[in-house]
């Protein structure tokens, strides 16, 4: 009895955590605090993946998202530390506009979801999908294999890396001037 | 490749030849284009003779025909899926218009003998424009008709914008935009015609066999008539014509006023009245009234003009009003008058603008009050100017009178679908224009050519050179020949216009009892 109640409890717990943290990401005055709360949200979603019986994804989530991307964001915050510490509030108009758009989006999707199209299917029990299956799917060059996208993503990552380096490189002129004036 | 296609292709080939000629040698370019247009004149003559041999035997059966009989027809499928094919042919009206255009382009090339700025592009564009015009006159497939219509209208922008004078960009822009609006109307009309006839063919003769529902005709006809009316200087849409002509170089305004404005009248007749008889009957009186304003408005407007080109532009607005008046009177004489007026006004305005170009070339001013007593210095131009003036005010012995008398007779005889009293009243008002035209023509010409020489600079101006004499000479002779022996032209077009009238009577619901 307790066993099958637990997932619901955990679901609601995680939902609450991710929503509050998401809200603080978006409205946090201090950008660093926002980064940390983003980390929290991502961790919570890792938990959600677990709930959905896909532990590998949870692992990847934690590894890449939390470990990689959030760290990068923190670096970005550090690198672009601007003089004004506190990020001032967005203008009243912008808030209203953004809020209105977000709310309409949420309202619309809510109506869509409650429409009869999506049957309220409960989670059916499934054998744990092991990591090997995912690995085989990634490299399977057959009919519904994902070899091609896998290669393409690797290409994408490579391009992003090079792009990042090129863009973030200090412009030659700046370098030259700094060399002169010390 | 039959004669009809050659008529369209020859100017285009000349244009290519001109483009191929080295830009450094403008006189070579001029000779090439002159040769091309000269060859075209010969080709037109040959076609006319052949057409006449083919057409004259069955003039009799035109009395009852309700479909235009085409000769020298060439049909090549083009877009099979849409039912569009390259359909080219000749009937009486087309033949008259082709003769007119061929004469005007030949004299136009002669009149622009001293264009020095970028001669190559000028002549190439001019010849492309005229290819479009020939295409329109000769094509009997609505799609092809519209395509050539655009080909004819677009080079105008460049020709006026680059080689024009005065606010040339403004007028070029205005002219092209208004004509585009017009062609938009026409396109909508054509698509309606295509759609309501089952959307299988654009061929004019087949569309004619289809009887369109009366309500459809009632809203499509004004669309097409106004669409073509914009080019034919119908009253409220004529404002591009004074600016456009004033800023255009000589040959361009010759071609434009002389020929392009006739596309309007031609289209209104060939597509508007021919395919939509009930529409024409319904709107006949309205457009007749509008064109009456057109005639008097243009005439009165011309009185106060100080610039020679505006003066002629307004007079062509008035004369084009005759063309549309003839079309709107919906009877044989009206149609004949419209086509005759198209021909005679084409030649007349061509002559007027050629002469203005020559005078401007000498005095470098087009302002009438500044000029005076030029007859002493340039007698040939003065005589030709007076002949053009006399022809435009409808002096018998010139083509103007023949056309105007037809239009007025047609208007006065009225038709079975508009109230006879109204048509007669409108015709009487329209005839007032012969006096007003006389007033502004004589005032203008007397001020410019007669009286003492006002400006001593004009003392040593030279008279017309050989090319100028040739171009004006040809135009004057054409005016006189058609004026003295109208039978030639009338026989050519009468049998072609009978089907139009038979179609009107075949479907017409006679309103007033009428013989």
């Amino acid at each position: 009895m307790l066993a099958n109640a637990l997932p619901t409890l955990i679901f609601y717990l995680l939902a609450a955590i991710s929503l509050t943290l998401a809200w603080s990401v978006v409205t946090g005055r201090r950008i660093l605090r926002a980064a940390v709360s983003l980390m929290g949200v991502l961790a919570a979603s890792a938990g959600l993946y677990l709930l959905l019986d896909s532990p590998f994804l949870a692992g990847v989530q934690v590894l890449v998202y939390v470990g990689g991307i959030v760290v990068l964001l923190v670096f970005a915050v550090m690198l672009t530390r601007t003089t004004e510490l506190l990020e001032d509030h967005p203008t009243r108009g912008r808030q209203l506009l953004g809020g209105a758009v977000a709310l309409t989006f949420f309202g619309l999707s809510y109506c869509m979801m409650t429409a009869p199209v999506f049957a309220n299917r409960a989670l059916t029990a499934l054998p744990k999908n092991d990591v090997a299956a995912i690995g085989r799917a990634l490299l399977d060059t057959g009919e519904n294999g994902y070899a091609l996208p896998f290669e393409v993503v690797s290409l994408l990552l490579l391009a992003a890396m090079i792009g990042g380096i090129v863009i973030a490189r200090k412009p030659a002129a700046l370098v030259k001037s700094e060399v002169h004036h010390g | 490749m039959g004669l009809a296609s050659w008529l369209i292709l020859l100017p285009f080939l000349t244009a290519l030849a001109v483009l191929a000629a080295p830009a450094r040698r403008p006189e070579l370019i001029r000779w090439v284009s002159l040769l091309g247009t000269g060859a075209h004149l010969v080709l037109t003559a040959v076609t006319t003779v052949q057409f006449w041999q083919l057409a004259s035997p069955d003039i009799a059966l035109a009395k009852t025909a309700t479909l235009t009989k085409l000769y020298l027809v060439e049909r090549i499928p083009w877009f099979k899926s849409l039912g569009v094919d390259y359909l080219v042919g000749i009937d009486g009206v087309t033949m008259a218009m082709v003769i007119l255009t061929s004469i005007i382009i030949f004299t136009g090339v002669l009149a622009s003998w001293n264009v020095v700025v970028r001669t190559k592009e000028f002549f190439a564009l001019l010849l492309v424009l005229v290819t479009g015009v020939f295409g329109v006159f000769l094509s009997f497939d609505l799609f092809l008709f519209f395509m050539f219509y655009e080909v004819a209208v677009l080079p105008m922008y460049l020709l006026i914008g680059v080689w024009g004078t005065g606010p040339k960009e403004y007028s070029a822009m205005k002219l092209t935009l208004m004509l585009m609006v017009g062609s938009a109307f026409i396109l909508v009309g054509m698509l309606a015609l295509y759609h309501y006839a089952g959307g299988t063919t654009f061929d004019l003769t087949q569309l004619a066999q289809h009887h369109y529902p009366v309500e459809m005709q009632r809203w499509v006809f004004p669309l097409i008539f106004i669409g073509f009316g914009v080019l034919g200087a119908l009253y409220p849409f004529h404002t591009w014509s004074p600016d456009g002509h004033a800023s255009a170089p000589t040959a361009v305004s010759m071609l434009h006023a002389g020929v392009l404005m006739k596309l309007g009248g031609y289209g209104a007749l060939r597509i508007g009245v021919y395919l939509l008889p009930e529409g024409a009957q319904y709107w006949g009186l309205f457009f007749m009234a509008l064109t009456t304003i057109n005639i008097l408005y243009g005439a009165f407007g011309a009185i106060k003009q100080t610039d020679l080109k505006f003066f002629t532009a307004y007079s062509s607005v008035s004369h084009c009003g005759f063309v549309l008046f003839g079309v709107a009177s919906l009877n044989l004489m009206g149609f004949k008058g419209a086509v005759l007026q198209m021909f005679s006004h084409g030649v007349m305005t061509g002559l007027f603008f050629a002469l203005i170009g020559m005078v401007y070339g000498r005095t470098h001013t087009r302002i009438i009050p500044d000029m005076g007593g030029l007859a002493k210095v340039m007698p040939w131009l003065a005589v030709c100017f007076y002949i053009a003036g006399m022809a435009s005010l409808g002096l018998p012995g010139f083509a103007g009178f023949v056309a105007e008398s037809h239009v007025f007779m047609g208007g006065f005889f009225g038709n079975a679908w508009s109230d006879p009293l109204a048509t007669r009243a409108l015709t009487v008002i329209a005839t007032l224009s012969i006096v007003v035209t006389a007033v502004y023509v004589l005032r203008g010409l007397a001020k410019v050519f007669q009286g003492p020489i006002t400006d001593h600079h004009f003392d040593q101006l030279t008279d017309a050179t050989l090319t100028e004499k040739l171009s004006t000479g040809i135009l004057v002779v054409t005016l006189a020949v058609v004026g003295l022996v109208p039978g030639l032209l009338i026989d050519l077009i009468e049998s072609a216009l009978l089907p139009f009238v038979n179609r009107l009577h075949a479907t017409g619901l006679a309103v007033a009892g009428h013989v």
Partner: protein
Amino acid sequence: MGDFLANHAPTLTHWLVLTSALFSIGIYGMLTRRNAVGVLMSLELCLNAAAVNFVLFNRYLAPTNLGGAERLDGAVMTIFVIAVAAAEVVVGMAIFVAMYAERRTVDVTRLDALKD
């Protein structure tokens, strides 16, 4: 209490409400955040919500294909989403750094070179 929770297990709709809420908050963040990095973070939120959705649909709507073999499309797509998100953050950060070097600010409202 336990059985209350048991028979109120979260159905697909609950999940979807959660993910769309997250997504909307992400949108709100993107449209109102002044700091460029903040915008990027909100973007991550949205991407993450979408990734969760993939897994959701895979698990709820198409767990197995006809032959009974388990379908993994959702999971694989999530991996790709995460990969793309990573690439995207790299490029985003590089742009912000370059922007900062150039303009000394990352305040989105002041960076409107797009206008002229």
